[in-house]
């Protein structure tokens, strides 16, 4: 057996473990929400609740991302593009994080250009990118997160904006490195950018691939993450 095969075997072990972890987490979240339903109203509002909800979503997002990276690595990532209604798509992503928004007092809103109500992309993959972005935005937002959809010369642009501190200047400067996977060792945001970049690039039209972009500012003044899909 050569080194290459060994490396692949190890990543398969990790992937199946992550798969089990994800199932386990799903059971945990389900049991937790059932148990929560039996508690009196006052106990349901405890601040620890918000921490749990956020960390559940965060853990789940990371595991989904890990599985996604594994599939990218072994070239198993199936791209299944189709037309999707954008307001529905974004609402669904926000609904997943509803408890966290509520417990952290964050106001989450979205705007969809009524002239382009449909987008063409792989729902699962783009959802995993959006879920990570929302998670990230929640971590840094003070009171508000805004998701907007617009059209840039025929490309669909998904923008996630928060009212937090914004990305560090060095990260914005070197974002191309993150996307290329050169600098992966700087925590989950770097890995998230890499993953988002790879997924965006899988979406192609007439030779043009999708891409990501981070900056600061926007209507809320904090971090801005943009996903361009051709």
């Amino acid at each position: 057996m050569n080194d290459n095969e060994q490396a692949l075997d190890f990543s398969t072990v990790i992937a199946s473990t992550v798969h089990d972890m994800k199932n386990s987490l799903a059971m945990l979240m389900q049991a937790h929400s059932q148990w929560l339903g039996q508690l009196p109203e006052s106990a349901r509002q405890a601040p620890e609740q918000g921490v749990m909800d956020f960390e559940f979503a965060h853990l789940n997002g990371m595991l989904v991302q890990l599985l996604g990276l594994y599939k990218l690595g072994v070239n198993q990532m199936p791209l299944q593009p189709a037309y999707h209604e954008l307001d529905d798509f974004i609402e669904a992503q926000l609904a997943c994080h509803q408890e966290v928004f509520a417990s952290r007092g964050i106001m989450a809103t979205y705007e969809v250009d009524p002239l382009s109500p449909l987008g063409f992309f792989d729902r699962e993959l783009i959802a995993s990118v959006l879920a990570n972005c929302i998670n990230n935005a929640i971590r840094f937002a003070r009171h508000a997160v805004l998701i907007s959809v617009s059209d840039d010369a025929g490309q669909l642009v998904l923008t996630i904006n928060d009212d937090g501190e914004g990305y560090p200047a060095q990260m914005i400067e070197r974002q191309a490195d993150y996307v290329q996977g050169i600098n992966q060792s700087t925590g989950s945001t770097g890995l998230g950018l890499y993953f988002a970049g790879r997924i965006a690039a899988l979406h192609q039209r007439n030779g043009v691939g999708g891409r990501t972009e981070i900056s600061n500012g926007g209507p809320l003044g904090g971090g801005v993450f943009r996903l361009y899909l051709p």
Partner: protein
Amino acid sequence: MLSYHQKRFLIVDDFSDFRSSVRSMLRELGVKEVDTADTGEQALKMCSQKAYDFILQDFHLGDGKKNGQQVLEDLMEEKLISHESVFVMVTAETSQAMVLSALEHEPDAYLTKPFNRSSLAQRLERLEQRKTLLKPILQALDRGKPMEVLNACIALCKQDIRYSPLCLRFRADALRDLNQNEALERLYDSIIADRPLPWAFAGLGKLLFKRGQVGQAKGIYEKALKVFPMMPSLYDGMADVLVAEGDTKGAQRVLEEAIRLSPLAVRRQALLGKLAMTNEDFDTAAKAYRQAVSQGAQSRFKDAESNLGLAHALISKGSERGLDTRTRLEINTTLSAVAKENPSDPGLQIRARLMKATSLLLNDAETADKLTEQALLRLDGMEQFMSAEAALLVAKQLKLLGQTEAGTAMLKNCVEIYGDDPVVMKDIAKQTDDPSILNSGNAAAELNRQGVRVYKTGNLVEARQVFRKALAMQPKNISIALNMAQSLLHGTDTSVPSAELEECRTCLKMVGLMPDTDARYPRYQKLKSKALGQ
């Protein structure tokens, strides 16, 4: 008030915890009518008794059980749910389920576990909205009226052009059902030029293949597989192309690839078994047929041909000293199932017995003889035609079992029924070089060709005469009988009794004995309903 409160829900999941958790979410959302099922079989039964508006179906219902995709296929094929119902596939991991999904039956949405109440509410609300938007199209689909589907699509796009992408699939399927091939090809081309959609590629490939443009179909599949290497149905299309080109080894490799991606597919496994038999790769054939049999047990695609194929592959694999006990046991089990489950099908009864007799030839000659005798008795009284493939294997096995005369009779019969097909004649030539058999169909086949030429000139009277002469030589020949029937129906008023009509019905009664798997069966049905004035 949300719009789905008054609707009927069915939750299908093998975990009771999950069922109760979703049930309580739905209750909290104000839904009153919620039923649950823990297996696919139960879900199908419940759907046949009650029309559900929403079905939340878990994808993986346990090993060896019908999965969510199979439940969806059964519900659609048996028309147990309306197109207006919402079918949501619930999965632990969605991409896998999507790969396994057949392109022709996709769920309305996927919902990944875990999900919270707001996610569920959001999905349901949206799906309800979408179904309302598409209502005229979905109702036309339920009525099975493709023309009305097209009109409803046009109306919706007129009302709001932005939603036209949502209609593409409905339009394509309707054009396909209406056999409007040119319009369909233009639609597929325009879709692919704008956005590569896997179903559009698969549809275009299928259309080109159906029209005999095999080379172009191949080009489309090659292009599609570059963009969607994970889509098993594209491999199926490619395999069809390679078989048509005579490259059965290449076709086998392509199907093996599709099965690696998506092993749960009864028809694909059976087709692989058949191809591997052609390629004399008996190990692969046995493995594929074994899968087809075991998966088929829960599926609507259960087919005795897979059992027979498995037995045939195992026998072919055997050594000169006969078969080992384990193999004999497997053959016995798989063939007994055929005999037991098809008591009124004489063809299958005969074939199962001969197959078993062949397997026992070296180890238990006495039982083999007994089985052969039983088969011969049934063969004598059998009116229905076997498929050419089945008949030729029966002929071969009869000869092996020492029944040379019966084998030869079988071959002659096969020439009579299928002799105009050069492929069948080539297979017959593999078993005999007796010119009296090989040439017995020539004169009738020539007359049949002549009849077609005359028919095309519009000279009905002469065409009928030529076909009649041909049919007198080979009364069971399917092609000649169908041509005869068609020429008799041409210009004949089917509402008044006439000699032509009578002759036509007699003709059709004879070809009605053909297997319903024959490619000409739909043509027969069409002629029959015309002859009966339906």
